[in-house]
């Protein structure tokens, strides 16, 4: 597999009146061609900041990339000038945002909003760009694209608007699509349609997707690999199967345990106690330790390194150290892990088939 994006030791900070907020503290990740990487984590874990850093959209001031590299096509995006970034944004890397109700300009026709990128990056004439915009609307499944192209966002429903946003993002056939919680603001049936659409388009165009979400159900549906973020760091990363059926980090256990599922109906949902740490003054040691029922003394002293579980599976927890005591994950998680060993619980996989 070909790596098309590699983020190395990324640190992003925001200078506020309360001090420096270290929103992202040493993130390493990579994206392979044609795959979907999901970044999951609760609010404030740094997932959106990481994606904005890749796009070069961290508002400066107050934000800045303190250190690290974002390698794309042999170049470091973190060190590029604004002008160079502008030529990459929207053409090589594009982004879909969370709320389709606010991410379109209300006073401009959707056609014009799609055309802007085409005119800028592909130097199309207005008429060419318009016919391409109609094609794109058709591609994202908007009926009557010929008339829809000259309508305004308020004439579209939420789901349709998100399709328009996707059309804008895909206008110039980007190599990477960053989707920042694209289904969070939509209702469940529409969510499924949008996910379906993204999967279809990925197949057609071979785009790699970074999918940011806090919804593990969506992750299972769309991702190839998962990176779990907590307090500005990636705490566990692996393939979807590894994360769902063989999770190693107590935080991942917490996330999975707090997800309702049909086959765990008799058990209670496990809530992760407490709240994420204040990133103006990140705790010494493991940032998750204060909320971690499995925390050991070393967790409050020293940050755990990433332990390798398999070639694709890594987790940052001292529990994986050879000297650590053997701990039993919560009941619900153990059940999942058992399922992995024998037969997988029924779950819709990427190709939409049920295996069980």
């Amino acid at each position, binding site marked *: 597999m070909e790596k098309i994006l590699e983020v190395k030791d990324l640190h992003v900070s925001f200078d506020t009146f309360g001090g420096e907020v270290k929103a992202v503290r040493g993130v390493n990740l990579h994206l392979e061609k044609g795959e979907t990487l999901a970044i999951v984590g609760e609010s404030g874990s740094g997932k959106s900041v990481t994606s904005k850093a890749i796009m070069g959209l961290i508002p400066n001031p107050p934000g800045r990339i303190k250190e690290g590299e974002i390698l794309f096509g042999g170049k470091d995006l973190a060190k590029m000038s604004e002008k160079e970034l502008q030529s990459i*944004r*929207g053409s090589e890397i594009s982004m879909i*945002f969370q709320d389709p109700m606010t991410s379109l300009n*209300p*006073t*401009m026709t959707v056609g014009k909003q799609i055309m802007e990128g085409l005119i800028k990056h592909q130097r199309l004439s207005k008429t060419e760009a318009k016919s391409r915009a109609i094609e794109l609307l058709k591609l994202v499944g908007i009926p009557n694209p010929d008339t829809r192209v000259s309508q305004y966002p308020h004439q579209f429903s939420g789901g349709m608007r998100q399709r328009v946003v996707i059309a804008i993002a895909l206008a110039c056939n980007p190599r990477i699509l960053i989707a920042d919680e694209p289904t969070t603001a939509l209702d469940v049936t529409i969510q499924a349609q949008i996910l379906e659409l993204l999967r279809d388009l990925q197949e057609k165009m071979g785009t790699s997707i970074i999918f940011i979400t806090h919804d593990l159900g969506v992750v299972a549906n769309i991702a190839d690999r998962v990176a779990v973020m907590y307090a500005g760091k990636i705490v566990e990363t692996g393939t979807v199967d590894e994360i769902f059926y063989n999770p190693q980090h107590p935080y991942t256990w917490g996330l999975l345990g707090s997800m309702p599922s049909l086959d765990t109906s008799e058990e209670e949902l496990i809530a992760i106690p407490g709240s994420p740490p204040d990133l103006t003054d990140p705790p010494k040691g493991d940032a998750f330790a204060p909320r971690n029922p499995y925390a050991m003394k070393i967790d409050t002293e020293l940050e755990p390194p990433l332990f390798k579980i398999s070639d694709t599976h890594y987790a940052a927890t001292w529990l994986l150290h050879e000297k650590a005591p053997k701990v039993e994950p919560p009941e619900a998680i153990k059940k999942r892990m058992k399922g992995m060993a024998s037969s997988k619980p029924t779950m819709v996989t990427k190709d939409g088939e049920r295996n069980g």
Partner: protein
Amino acid sequence: MGRYIGGRVVSMLVTFLIIASLTFFLMKLLPGTPFNNQEKMSESQIQQMNEKYGLNDPVPVQYVTYMTNLFKGDLGVSFQQDGRSVTTIIGERIGPSAYLGFQSLLIGTIFGLLLGIIAALKHNTFLDYGSMIIAVLGISIPSFVIAGMMQYWVGVKWGMLPVAYWEGFEYTIMPTIAIAAAVTATIARFMRTEMLEVLGQDYITTAKAKGLTSTAVVIKHTIRNASIPIITIMGPMVVALMTGTLVIEQIFVIPGLGEKFVSSIMTNDFPIIMGTTLFFSILFIVVILVVDVLYGIVDPRIRLAGGK
């Protein structure tokens, strides 16, 4: 759209009738008659004049007469300038007022928008603070103070511009600046707030994520959306400029409508008071309609709400 405007015109007529009636009765409450301040006239002459202009009739009768004439398009004749019709007088006086108002509005708007946009784009920098200091000064210093200072320094001390009268372009400069200061300030403050608001919107991030240059983002996505609320304040401002210039017209001795309006109240020149008030009302009502129609053109969401 046509039906919408039709409906609006009907309600405008009703508004106009109410204003006309209210003004008529309020005016009748003014103390004195048009003629009792002229000492040269004897009691019998005043009676004669009152009789001539129908001022001895009971007020309801006068009201009916006035309204009937109004519908015929007859605003009556001035009591003070014998025999000259109100329409003629307004026609003579409107020129300088309209010119001055329009020029101040144009200059004030251009500078206001510029200051506001610069302040917002350079938010929390020296340029931002500088623009807002100018804006606060423009709002807090009354126009007559600015006018007086200009007359003293620019007009008298340095002799650069004529101090008063209305005889050519250079005569318009100082009054224009005096009026435009407040316009600039108001629009600058509004525009800055609106720009900052729009710049924080998600669709601005979308536009940036398309790879547009910051200039394109500002021109195509920010300024248009930020200027929508400006149109709302522009409407009343246009009328305020037409009427509000009256102090400035007095100071610079400009033969405008505002100056006439003030003197007609002083002398109980009923037809002139009525005529000018009604003229300003029509202006105001029409401007509000124009603003609403403009709103629909700039903001497509309202176009739909207005119906076709």
